[in-house]
C-alpha cells in the first residue's frame, strides 16, 4: 500500500490532529510548571497563540487538500510542513503586539522557536498518520482475499453447482441464467482493484448472488429490498452487501425449515448512506463463528477507509439479527465537478 497524505477533510483526522497537538503542548507546559496554577495560567497564555495557529492550519489544509492529494507523497508532506510553518510565522508576525511579551529580550529566538516547533509537530503527526495507515492496511489486503474467498466459499460453490446440475435437464434455460449469474459474481470477485464502486453495481451483484441462493432454497428465501431513496451516483466500498447477505442466508434462512425474509433498507439521509439489514434467526442456532471473519473485516475496512465517519452496529435479538452501517455519501465521477473528483481522490 503506497503512502498517502491523511485526508484533511475527514472529521476523524481533524479531531485527531486537534487532540494530539493540544495534548503535546499541555504535556510540555506541565512538565515545566511548578504548580497546577502556573500550568493552567501558562496554558491560557499559550492557547492565545496556539489555537489560532492550529485552526488556521486546519482550515488551510482542508481547503488545499484536493491539490495536495494530487502531489506525490514526499512532495506533499514537505509542502504541508512548509505551509504550517508559514502560517505560524504569519500569525505571530501580525499579532506580534499581542503575542510577543513586551519585556522579551530575544524576539527572534521566540519567533523562530515557535515556527520550528510547529514544523516539528507537523512532521510528527504526519509520521503518526503514516504508521497508522501501515498498521491498518493489512486489513485491506486481507479484505480483498477474504471477499474473494467468501464468494468462492466452498459451501456456496458446491451447493450451487449441485443445484444447477439438479435443474439442467428439467429447465435448461434457468440453468443457463444461473451459470451466467455465477460467472458475473466470480468475475467481479476476482477482478476488483478499486476501493469504491457505484452502489447500483454492488446491489446488482448482491441480487445475482441471491438469485443463486433462491435456486436452492426456493420459497424459503424471501428478500425485501427497500432502496427507493438511494442516489444512483453514490459510491460504496465493494464486498459490503454480499458477505452480509451470505451470512444472513447461511445462519438465518438455511436453519429455518419455513425460511424467512431478509429485509434490506438502503437509503440516503442527510449526507450519509444508511444500510440496514435484518434477517430472522433460528432460536436454537448456536452462536456462530464461521463467517464472523467476513463481518469483522467489513468493520475494519470501514474504520480504515472512513474512520469515524462510518459506523457499524449489530443488534442481535432472540429471533432476529440486524446489521446497521452508516457510510459517508460519496458521489461518482459522472457528475464532473471539482468537489466529487476530489472526494474520489481522497479515498483512493
Amino acid at each position, binding site marked *: 500500500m503506497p503512502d498517502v497524505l491523511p485526508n484533511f477533510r475527514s472529521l476523524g483526522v481533524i479531531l485527531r490532529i486537534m487532540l494530539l497537538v493540544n495534548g503535546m503542548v499541555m504535556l510540555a507546559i506541565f512538565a515545566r510548571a511548578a504548580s497546577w496554577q502556573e500550568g493552567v495560567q501558562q496554558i491560557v497564555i499559550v492557547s492565545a497563540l496556539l489555537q489560532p495557529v492550529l485552526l488556521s492550519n486546519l482550515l488551510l489544509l482542508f481547503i488545499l487538500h484536493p491539490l495536495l492529494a494530487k502531489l506525490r507523497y514526499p512532495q506533499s508532506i514537505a509542502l504541508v510542513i512548509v505551509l504550517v510553518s508559514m502560517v505560524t510565522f504569519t500569525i505571530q508576525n501580525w499579532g506580534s503586539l499581542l503575542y510577543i511579551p513586551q519585556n522579551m529580550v530575544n524576539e527572534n529566538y521566540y519567533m523562530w522557536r515557535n515556527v520550528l516547533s510547529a514544523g516539528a509537530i507537523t512532521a510528527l503527526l504526519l509520521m503518526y498518520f503514516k504508521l497508522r495507515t501501515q498498521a491498518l492496511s493489512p486489513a485491506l489486503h486481507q479484505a480483498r482475499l477474504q471477499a474473494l474467498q467468501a464468494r468462492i466459499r466452498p459451501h456456496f460453490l458446491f451447493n450451487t453447482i449441485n443445484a444447477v446440475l*439438479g435443474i439442467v435437464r428439467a429447465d435448461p434455460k434457468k440453468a443457463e441464467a444461473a451459470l451466467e449469474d455465477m460467472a458475473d459474481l466470480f468475475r467481479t470477485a476476482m477482478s476488483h482493484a478499486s476501493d469504491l464502486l457505484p452502489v447500483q453495481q454492488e446491489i446488482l451483484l448482491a441480487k445475482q448472488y441471491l438469485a443463486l441462493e433462491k435456486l436452492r432454497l426456493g420459497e424459503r428465501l424471501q428478500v425485501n429490498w427497500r432502496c427507493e431513496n438511494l442516489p444512483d451516483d453514490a459510491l460504496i466500498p465493494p464486498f459490503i452487501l454480499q458477505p452480509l447477505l451470505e451470512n444472513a442466508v447461511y445462519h438465518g434462512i438455511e436453519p429455518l425449515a419455513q425460511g424467512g425474509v431478509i429485509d434490506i433498507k438502503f437509503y440516503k439521509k442527510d449526507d450519509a448512506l444508511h444500510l440496514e439489514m435484518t434477517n430472522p434467526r433460528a432460536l436454537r442456532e448456536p452462536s456462530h463463528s464461521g463467517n464472523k471473519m467476513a463481518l469483522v473485516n467489513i468493520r475494519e475496512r470501514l474504520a480504515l477507509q472512513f474512520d469515524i465517519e462510518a459506523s457499524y452496529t449489530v443488534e442481535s435479538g432472540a429471533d432476529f439479527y440486524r446489521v446497521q452501517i452508516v457510510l459517508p455519501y460519496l458521489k461518482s465521477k459522472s457528475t464532473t465537478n471539482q468537489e466529487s473528483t476530489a472526494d474520489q481522490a481522497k479515498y483512493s
Partner: protein
Amino acid sequence: MNIASITHSAPLTIFIVDDEPPARNRLKELLQDCAQHIPLKLLGEAANGQQALDQLSATPADVVLVDIRMPQMDGIELAQHLNKMSPPPAIIFTTAYDTYAIKAFELHAIDYLLKPIRQQRLLDTLLRARTAVKIQAEVLRKLTSQARRNLSSHERGKVYLIPIEQVLYLRAELKYITVRTLAREYLIEESLNALEQEFAEIFIRIHRNCLVAKKSIEGFEKLTEADTNETHWTVKLKGLSEQLPISRRQQHIVKEIS
C-alpha cells in the same frame, strides 16, 4: 458382492432426504441413470427428518441418502433415529462441504457422497450398500458436538419423535427407559448414563435410575414413610402430580437448586 449377484436379488429400495428441491431432483436423475446398471427402486423423498421418519416407518428402505446440513434436524441426528429401526437402513451421507464431518467419515469408514455427486461414485456406493455394516451409535454421536434435539421411540412400527424440551423426566426401568412428557409416556432403548452425558445441561440426576429436567422442577418436599418412619426428599415437577424420590446420595441437589 459383485454386480451379477445383485441383479438376481430384489431391487434395492432407496429413499432421499434433502431440504433443497434441486438437490433431490439431481439425486433422482442420477438414480435413474444408475437403474440401468443395478435394479433399484426409489421409494420416496423427504425435505426434513420428521417426514423421512414417518414415511420410512411405513415403508422401510434398504438405503437412505441423507443430507447433513438440514434445518430443525440435521442428517447426523436423523441417522441416529434411523439407526434404531429394525432392520436399520444403510445410511449414506451427502454433503457439499463439511471438512469436519468428512474427516470423521474417513476415520470410521462411513459412506458419504460429495455434492455434486458423480453417477459412478453413487453406483459404487449403492453396490456396497447391501453389505454395509451398521454405523455404531457411539460413532454417530461422535460425529456431532451437538446434542440431539429429539429422542425417538418406536412403537408398533411407528416412530415418535419427542422434542427434548418437552421431556419432564427419564427413568430407567428394566431394559427400557421411560420418557415422560406432559401428554404421555414413551419407552426408549438407550442407556441412562449416555443420556445424562449427552444432555448434561438439561437434566439432573436425582436417583440412580432417574434424570429430571432442571427447568421443570417446581419444588422439593420431605416425606415420611408411614411404615418405616424414614424421611426422604422428593421432587415435584411442573404439571405432574406424582412426586419423584431423591436418593440419599443425590440429596445435595436440594440445596443446590432451591
